[in-house]
């Protein structure tokens, strides 16, 4: 392709100046961008008032694509279901019988738990969901793993609330706008979640790696007690998540813990629930730094 002759400046001073001004504006724009970038890396929530309404506008379109997404998944499941239907049916029937027995046992344990808790006068764990919604979108072109939900401040969603699917933890609310909210997924490299092994009290941190897997980092170092296939659930430490919700399954062992797969793939879930913060008091307490001086008002409490 030959260059367009319109873009040559020649001897025209006017043309030359306009090209120069273009370069000048573009360079100033780049500098402005650099400054804004620095500001938003330093104070990540500083542009929330801009982003929130913008997300509110697009979220309804995301509802439509979310509906299509779940529909498409069902079609695919139906097609794959035809393969090995007979043998799978028999295997599933055996499995469900055992699962029913285990479920009945679990119900008995739950009843006993409730009775013991009532004896100790501990509050119940049943938390009413704040909102049930779909994941309407995500930052699919960026290295960060954010998702967006179509419920916001107007529905009672607040920053820090955990987001669960029917399988387990999905993430937690990071920013809230009027009718939409941004969720930090567990797979994001900035996400850290306190977990414990479901079978005992081995506590660890589940950190996102940014490639879809979680790194399980044991808090007590020493001999690594983990085994491949261990299930991790939330420990409830930190106060955001209620304890006992499934998070990840260990896939691979490392010296200080392991690498785990998510239990609740956000893209495989249809609906997610946003639950209230488990213990707001614990969250508030963690935000007070050791050297903060209390005001007179707080001392009065």
């Amino acid at each position, binding site marked *: *392709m*030959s*260059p*367009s002759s*319109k*873009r040559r400046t020649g001897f025209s001073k006017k043309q030359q100046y306009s090209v120069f001004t*273009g*370069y000048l*504006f*573009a*360079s100033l*724009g*780049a500098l*402005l*961008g*650099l*400054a*804004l*970038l*620095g500001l*938003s*890396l330093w104070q*990540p929530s500083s*542009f929330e008032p*801009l*982003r929130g309404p*913008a*997300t509110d506008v*697009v979220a309804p*379109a*995301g509802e439509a*694509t*979310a509906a299509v*997404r779940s529909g498409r998944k069902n079609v695919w499941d139906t097609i794959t279901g035809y393969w090995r239907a007979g043998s799978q049916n028999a295997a599933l029937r055996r499995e469900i019988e055992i699962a029913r027995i285990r479920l009945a046992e679990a119900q008995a344990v739950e009843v006993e738990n409730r009775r013991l808790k009532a004896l100790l006068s501990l509050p119940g764990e049943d938390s009413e969901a704040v909102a049930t919604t779909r*994941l*309407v*979108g*995500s*930052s*699919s*072109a*960026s*290295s*960060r*793993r*954010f*998702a967006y939900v179509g419920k916001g401040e107007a529905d009672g969603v607040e920053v820090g609330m955990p987001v669960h699917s029917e399988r387990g933890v999905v993430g937690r609310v990071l920013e809230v706008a009027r009718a939409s909210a941004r969720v930090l*997924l567990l*797979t*994001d*490299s*900035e996400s850290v979640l306190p977990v414990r092994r479901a079978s005992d009290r081995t506590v660890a941190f589940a950190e996102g*790696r*940014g*490639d*879809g897997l979680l790194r399980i980092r044991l808090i007590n170092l020493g001999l690594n007690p983990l085994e491949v296939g261990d299930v991790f659930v939330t420990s409830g430490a930190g106060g955001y998540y209620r304890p006992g919700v499934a998070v990840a399954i260990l896939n691979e062992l490392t010296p200080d813990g392991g690498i785990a797969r*998510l239990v609740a*793939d*956000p*893209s495989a879930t249809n609906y997610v629930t946003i639950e209230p913060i488990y213990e707001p008091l614990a969250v508030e307490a963690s935000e007070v730094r050791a050297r903060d001086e209390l005001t007179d008002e707080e001392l009065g409490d």
Partner: protein
Amino acid sequence: MQRLAPSARRDQYGSRINRAKSPIREYCTPYASIMLASLVPFLFLADVMPFVPPLGFMFLIGWRIMRPGVLPLWVGVPLGAFNDLYSGQPFGSGIFLWSLAMIGLEALESRFPWRGFWQDWFTAGLVVIMYILAAMVVSGATLSVHLLLATLPQILTSILVYPLVSRIIASLDRFRLSRSRRIG
């Protein structure tokens, strides 16, 4: 008098006689298409790794490479800001990187004015690779080998999708400059 073939009076945008472009279409199509393309990755659900190409940026460099002069040099500022609202990147990364890309492409074009499609594809691929890696660095994520490996599929799709993007831009350009009304 010898009659001309009817096709001789036509160019790629339609009849050359009695043709008036719509000014709204002429000036808005590039911007509208880039903004819509910025919205597309928002609607996909990527929970594991980034897999959708940065379509807004690809449309920007596509318009810039295929129709030089249509977009002003400073256009990265408003369009990058719009992209930042939806991309999940920290606000300002789009403004910064898109402006740099526009300046870089302008400088490259003054150095290599003659080029063809394959060379354009090479340029676009190179620019997109640099953009994706730079965006990863400024995204605020903890940099690691795993994060880098997770962007490789995205880089590959981005390079492979450029011919498609350029075809879409070509048809948008035909729509932009086609006849909107008859004169007289």
